[in-house]
């Protein structure tokens, strides 16, 4: 087989091309959370207005639910906001809000202006609760199961497509869990 050595560069190039092509489909922003299948980290946060009940980790159990991390300074949150409002309106799933690294008055005004899809909102001005959750940016959405365990993390704006492809099948599976 005298021709074989000449094939080596070709094969090596093909392998490299396949590897790099695969890397292209691999979005580095979509890092898996280390908290998957683990209980929600414990936290106790005040509400935005300081009067109504805030948000505690103990609120996040008993039902399959969403925990949405948002901030008034975040453009992506404006993008996904209509989607969240629609979900809240159709009572598709309870949505809880974590107002992350935001002035609570700004957060309050933002929700007053655009409408609140949240059952409860906690104010995380210092951002420490977000760090405990492994949040890398806003918006970010967690799916939490009945036992209060984090099952899925989605960084980035929640769109119709994302909802249909990533969330709906998962929610269906989680709801059929006993």
């Amino acid at each position, binding site marked *: 087989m005298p021709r074989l050595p000449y094939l080596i560069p070709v094969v090596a190039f093909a392998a490299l091309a396949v590897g790099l092509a695969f890397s292209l489909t691999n979005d580095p922003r979509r*890092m898996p959370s*280390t908290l998957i299948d683990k209980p929600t980290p414990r936290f106790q946060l005040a509400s935005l207005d300081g009067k109504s009940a805030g948000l505690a980790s103990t609120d996040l159990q008993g039902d399959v639910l969403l925990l949405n991390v948002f901030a008034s300074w975040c453009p992506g949150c404006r993008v996904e906001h209509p989607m969240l409002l629609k979900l809240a309106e159709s009572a598709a799933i309870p949505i809880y809000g974590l107002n992350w*690294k935001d002035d609570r008055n700004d957060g309050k005004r933002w929700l007053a202006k655009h409408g609140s899809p949240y059952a409860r909102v906690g104010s995380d001005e210092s951002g*420490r609760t977000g*760090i405990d959750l492994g949040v*890398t940016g806003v918006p970010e959405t967690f799916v939490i199961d009945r036992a209060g365990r984090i099952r899925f993390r989605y960084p980035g704006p929640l769109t119709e497509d994302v909802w249909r492809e990533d969330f709906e099948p998962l929610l269906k599976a989680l709801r059929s869990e006993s």
Partner: protein
Amino acid sequence: MSGRQIRRLVEALLLTSLVLTAIWSPCRAVLPDEMLQDERLETRARALGQQLRCVVCQNQSIDDSNAPLAHDLRVLLRDRLQAGDSDQQAVDFLVARYGNFVLLRPPLQWNTIPLWIGPFLALLTAVIVFGRYMRRAAGNATSPEAGPAAPLSADELKAIEVILDRRSLS
């Protein structure tokens, strides 16, 4: 040199020094109000901060990054050290939240073995391939077309001896 040339030279020098300062600048994104009073703790925080990835910008350490989350992580790191965490405990605290991804130096474990030995494998392959190529090139130096030369016939050997004898005589 004309005035214009001198100006160009000065501009080039300024630009070079600017770029070099940007590269070698020892003061990073760490802000004065973040620094700890205790110098030993601050030194440890700096050493750790340079090994931790800013999870927003992804290719900078938290010490290099101006991202607000990097600032939070620097402060958090210092809080942990002040609370008495060892370096390892402080790093583990962040790894528990962000995974091995926050480590700029990945740990050696089964799924990172290709990452660690890959470059050495590539180097080894290159050395072997290059060595074979060199050996073949050396072997082909006299007759690049034909493969390894056939042994000399008796006549040829005699002819060589005649030539060598003549040389040694002269």
